[in-house]
C-alpha cells in the first residue's frame, strides 16, 4: 500500500517537475537569446520600445 503510494507520488512529481522545468528552461532560453539579439540592434529598430 505504502509502496504503491510512493510509486504514484514518484510518477506524479516527475510529471510536474519535468513540466515546470521545461517551461522554465524555455522561458530562460527566450530571455537570454532575446537579450543577446537586442544588444546587436539599435533601439529605433525595436518596434516594442
Amino acid at each position: 500500500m505504502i509502496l504503491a503510494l510512493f510509486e504514484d507520488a514518484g510518477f506524479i512529481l516527475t510529471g510536474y517537475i519535468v513540466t515546470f522545468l521545461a517551461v522554465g528552461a524555455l522561458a530562460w532560453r527566450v530571455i537570454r537569446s532575446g537579450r543577446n539579439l537586442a544588444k546587436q540592434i539599435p533601439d529605433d529598430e525595436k518596434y516594442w520600445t
Partner: protein
Amino acid sequence: MTHLDDTSTATTSSTPGADAERLPSFATTGTRATRFLGIATLVAMGWLVLFGLVLSPADVNQGESVRFFYIHAPTIWVAYNSFVVTAFSSGAYLFTKKHSLGWDRLAGASAEIGVVFVALTLLTGALWGRLTWGIFWQWDARLTTTALLFATYIGYLAVRRLGGSHHQRAKRSAVLGLLSVLLIPLVHWSVLIWRSLHQEATVLDVDGDADIDGIMLFSILVGVVAFSLFYVWFVLHRTRMLAMEDLIEERGLDAALDARRAEGVKAVEGIEASRADETPVGDGGPS
C-alpha cells in the same frame, strides 16, 4: 519591419562616434506588459501546484493519478489554441494584401510553444497511462493521432528553417500551417470515431456539461490560465526575437551584396585600367 540600408552594427561598426547614439540601451525583448505577464504566470503556476498537488482530492476511480489531469488537459488545450493561432496567422499572411511578415512570425512562435505543450501532454499522458493502464504507450487512436499532430508540427518547424527569403519561408510554412490544423478535430474526436482506451472528453464534451467535481474543475481552470498566460508571454518575446533575427539576417545579406558589388566595381576598374595601359595598335606608332 524597417529595412536597414546601413549595414553597420553596434558591435562591428568602424565609426564608434557616429554609432554611439545608436547603441542599444534597451537590450531586452521585455516591456512592462511582459514583466507583468511573467509575474502573473509565476503566480498562476504556484496556484496550479497548490491546487494540483495539495488542495484537490484524490479521485474515486483514478486515485492520486488524477493529478496529472491538471497539467495534461490544459497543455493540450493551449496547444490546440496555439495551432489555431498558427493557422489564423498563416491565413492572414497569405490572404491579406500586405503579406506582413509579422503574421508569419506570430505563426512560427505559436507553433513552437504548441509543440512543447504537445510534448508535455504526451509525457504526462504516458506517466498517467503507466499508473492507470500499467503501460506507458499504447497504439490507441487518441495517442496515435496526438503523436501524429506532434510529428506534423515538428515538420512545420523544420520547413520554417529551410533556406530562401523571408517571404518564401512565410509562404510555404503558411500553406503547411493551414493544412496541419485540420488534424486537431481528428485528434479531439478520435475517441468518438474509433474504439479507444482513452477516456472521452470530461470538460469539453458534446453536451457541454462538465462531469467533474467543483474543486477538480477549478484546478483544471487554474492550469488553463497558467499555461495560457505563459503562452502569451512566450509568443510576445519570441515574435520580437524572430523580428530581430530577420533584421540581422537582412543586414548580413545586404553586407554580403555590398561586398560583392564592391568586388565587381573593383574588377571592372581593374580591367579598364589594364585596357588603358595597353598601347593600342596604330596609335602612337611611327607613321
